[in-house]
């Protein structure tokens, strides 16, 4: 289920888009004990020059945006995850073992240029 983005001018700028994947939708709720699903958030949006001077953007994004302004052949700065967190899954495998496993850098917490 996609969580709606707030209205307003910043709609097209780089920001995190939240997307929840329900295990029930996948039919995995029969073997995944917990959680109910996971956040498959993603980063999307423009990185105009003005944006790269503040807001979570890296220095080289500023340089790239500056170069793009001078020479459009240089690609624009892109919107990427800047903070990620792990997910833990508790599930039962085919041998009836109860397994607790962690997957690093799975959930996008923050985005930036």
């Amino acid at each position, binding site marked *: 289920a996609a969580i709606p983005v707030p209205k307003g001018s910043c709609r097209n700028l780089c920001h995190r888009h939240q997307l929840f994947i329900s295990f029930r939708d996948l039919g995995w709720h029969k*073997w995944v004990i917990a959680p109910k699903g996971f956040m498959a958030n993603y980063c999307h949006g423009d990185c105009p020059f003005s944006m790269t001077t503040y807001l979570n953007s890296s220095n080289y994004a500023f340089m790239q945006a500056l170069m793009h302004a001078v020479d459009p052949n240089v690609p624009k700065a892109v919107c990427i995850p800047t903070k990620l967190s792990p997910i833990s899954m508790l599930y039962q495998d085919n041998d009836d073992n109860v397994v607790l*496993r962690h997957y690093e850098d799975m959930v996008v917490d923050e985005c930036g240029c």
Partner: protein
Amino acid sequence: QTSKFQDYDLLRFLDLEKEPSAHRFQPVPRVLRKVFQAREAAAAGGASQDLCYVKELGVRGNLLRLLPDHGFFLNTQKPSQDGSCLQKFLYFNLSAIKEKGKLTMARLTLDLGPRSYYHLGPEVVVALSVIEDRGMWGQSHPKPGRMLALQSVLGPQGPLHFNLQGVVKDWNSSRRKNLGLYLEILANEDRYSGVNFQVENTCDRLIRSLHASLLVVTLNPEHCQPSSRKRR
């Protein structure tokens, strides 16, 4: 959009060969629940976590598995003359444990049933040994192999833990060695002569409520750098 989902790819990404088809959910032990909830709370709070160390168990590891017992009881008749209350083969299927992982913990839990002051029984002696000879499976009165533990337990209730790391490493080194364990519980009625404890009741209750499981913790070197390097 879910219809376009690549189930197979996501399973492979999660390091699973195929979609498990669990017919019945196993009980989740408290320790796994505790670790899971602590990790979830930390992730929600944005706190940094060392996913290669299990603080609740005090060992390194990034994959915890609870293996159910696939063994069976022997001699479930009334306690025999020699006071043998319960005899059971315990067997744990280690095939899910990949060679890649380093075994950092293997803890056998014998849950003797819920704690209750009403069910205090005679002292029992728990004898645990390794089965080293395949012929033992067929015997009704097997002679135990290498003794692992001999422990007297007063009023048998609640969980007993045994460290089986050495044995499981041995089993893991050669799967054919994994012939399981032999468990015998003897009721020691003499200890309570004069007090009216029902040995038979205790044996019945133990046979009904005994639940064995093996908690195995492994560390995948590909996912976990040696902690000392990280600290430097």
